[in-house]
């Protein structure tokens, strides 16, 4: 017998976790002598009150969709890919090389090539930990953490010694040619008659992220491979007995995961900065974990959770601008969301389950 209805599991539990996280954050704001209601108002008007705000919210959300989907796919195979940060760093390298080395006549061709390069570079960076997990039993969490640091060192080296244009002091690559610049979301919406602010960083990558979300949904629930990934995640022994090759599933799940994380770089590197910077990932790889947990590892949930975190990110920037509250408040909220939806999930889930059991018993 199900302990509680499905809607409670997918909707109520994350919602309660979120409310607890927000309440504690509110207490933190009170503790530092600020007004939580005012803070919330600044965040909502700043991030959602104008199409300009939405442009930033959706830009951040795009990053989190990619990394959140990446974490989810690995989670379904019961692999915890904590290396989204490193995989996205490498993805950025792939995008930058494609945009710098080839004179693209049109952005659409550059985008197609960047997708391939970003996904391939991200996947390669995930492949080594995946192989070590599958073949040598090295714990994938530890190896992916190590690969995050190795990626950061590698990128630092390449930017300082190889990609930095002569005479430039900052560790960043040259600017990409204007023909590689991706269309802005504002301009695209204006073209079809929807008014939207110009000059926001949201770009066509948002559509790409949504396509990826649908693709992940189809893959996981409507293909043989997705079934194999999910069975492997539920019970490795049963999956193996059913003839599912554990090495293959571990590799494939991590390659897809790394590829998705890598594609995040299209949004930041090609869509916004138009050059490769030292820290273009900005922790989005880690936020992917929060997004995946919050979204219950379902692509639809991931998209919603990404928009929520996009709102928090843009709202955090507004807070830092208009109030005395530093934007690190967002890091606190993020930690609390991960804590309550992930690690302390059982604490939230139990009372809800008990409530439903009692109601069922009464009937």
């Amino acid at each position: 017998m199900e302990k509680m209805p499905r809607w409670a599991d997918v909707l109520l539990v994350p919602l309660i976790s979120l409310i607890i996280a927000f309440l504690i954050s509110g207490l933190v704001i009170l503790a530092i002598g600020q007004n939580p209601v005012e803070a919330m108002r600044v965040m909502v008007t700043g991030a959602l009150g104008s199409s300009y705000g939405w442009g930033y919210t959706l830009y951040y959300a795009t990053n989190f969709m990619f990394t959140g989907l990446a974490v989810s796919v690995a989670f379904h195979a019961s692999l915890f890919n904590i290396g989204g940060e490193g995989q996205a760093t490498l993805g950025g390298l792939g995008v930058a090389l494609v945009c710098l080395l080839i004179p693209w006549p049109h952005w659409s061709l550059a985008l197609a090539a960047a997708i391939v390069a970003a996904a391939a570079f991200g996947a390669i960076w995930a492949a080594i930990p995946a192989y070590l997990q599958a073949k040598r039993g090295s714990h994938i969490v530890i190896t992916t953490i190590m690969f995050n640091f190795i990626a950061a060192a590698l990128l630092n080296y390449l930017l300082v010694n190889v990609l930095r244009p002569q005479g430039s002091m900052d560790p960043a690559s040259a600017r990409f040619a204007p023909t590689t610049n991706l269309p802005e979301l504002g301009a695209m919406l204006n073209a079809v008659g929807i008014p939207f602010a110009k000059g926001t960083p949201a770009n066509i990558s948002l559509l790409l992220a949504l396509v990826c979300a649908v693709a992940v949904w189809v893959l996981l629930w409507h293909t043989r491979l997705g079934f194999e990934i999910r069975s492997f995640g539920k019970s490795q022994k049963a999956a193996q007995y059913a003839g599912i090759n554990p090495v293959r599933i571990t590799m494939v799940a991590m390659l897809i995961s790394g590829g998705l994380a890598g594609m995040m770089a299209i949004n930041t590197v090609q869509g916004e900065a138009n050059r490769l910077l030292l820290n273009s990932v900005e922790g989005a790889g880690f936020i992917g974990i929060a997004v995946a947990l919050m979204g219950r590892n379902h692509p639809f949930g991931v998209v919603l959770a990404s928009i929520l975190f996009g709102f928090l990110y843009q709202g955090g920037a507004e807070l830092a601008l208009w109030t005395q509250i530093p934007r690190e408040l967002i890091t606190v909220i993020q930690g609390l969301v991960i804590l309550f939806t992930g690690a302390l999930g059982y604490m939230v889930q139990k009372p809800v389950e008990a409530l439903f059991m009692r109601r069922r018993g009464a009937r």
Partner: protein
Amino acid sequence: MDFATIIQMLDSTVRLATPLLLACLAGLFSERAGIFDIGLEGKMLIAAFASAAFAVFSGSVWVGLLAGIAASLMLSFIHGMASITFRGNQLISGVALNFLASGLTVLLSQSWFGLGGRTPSLEGAARFSEITLPFADAVRGVPVLGPIYADLISGHTILVYVALALVPASAWLLYSTRFGLRLRAVGENPAAVDTAGVSVVAIRYAAVLICGVLCGLAGAYLASLAAQFGREMTAGRGYIALAALIFAKWRPWYALTACLLFGFLDAVAIRFQNIDLGVFVIPVQFTQALPYILTVVILAGFVGKAIPPRAGGEPYVKER
């Protein structure tokens, strides 16, 4: 490279290895009891902040130290709640606590001191002073051994000696006491410990809290060394300590070696930047990444195999 430079390098190796060693031993206790802890970084960070802040308020480094330990213990307790009582995912809990520490430290230091996320400088009694061992100045003139004693062994703060003393102490506690046997057993086969009538939960909580105390020492050491708290000042040392723990195969004496090695790499990276070997140049980024690369190689089992405690990461369920 002359002798004085070598002594200087080794001296900074000891300084840089100390926080790693404290955090590594912290992780050792936790993981030997079957609780994975990737939250070492967060605990060190919040301890560094709390110890710096309270050292500023009180003017005493000891009050700071206690505050640092208390803050670190608080996170340890949450980690224990999540991974022992509520049987949550220990890795996710660690990630969450790292974020919490990273955000809270900046938020609180900005609101308490308004210096953009750092604390005022620690001066005088708010910092650990360097201890000059007896006769250090007298023997400095003795060739070779004199400088080794006076400049390398003498002249560190108390926590350096504490950290070094903790290595044999941990080895003794883990391998020669009843508590140590139970702690290791809880990490390998908790059901057996339970059957023997010993509380798995109590032992695991004890291990997690020991981990909190040691991370508190590590954070306080960092704050005192830098004479202030700065945002993200642990700079990944918690993860390096985790790497050292794997490198050391979860053993105290190996932990000392691993931490000294990683401390040495850090000292080399700081002092030499790019190393020109004539044939080719070793970039500083490679030296910085080397601890992580070495750990992956060890984990891969190509050079000696690192086998984690068998029950690591799994919550213990008494009845099914």
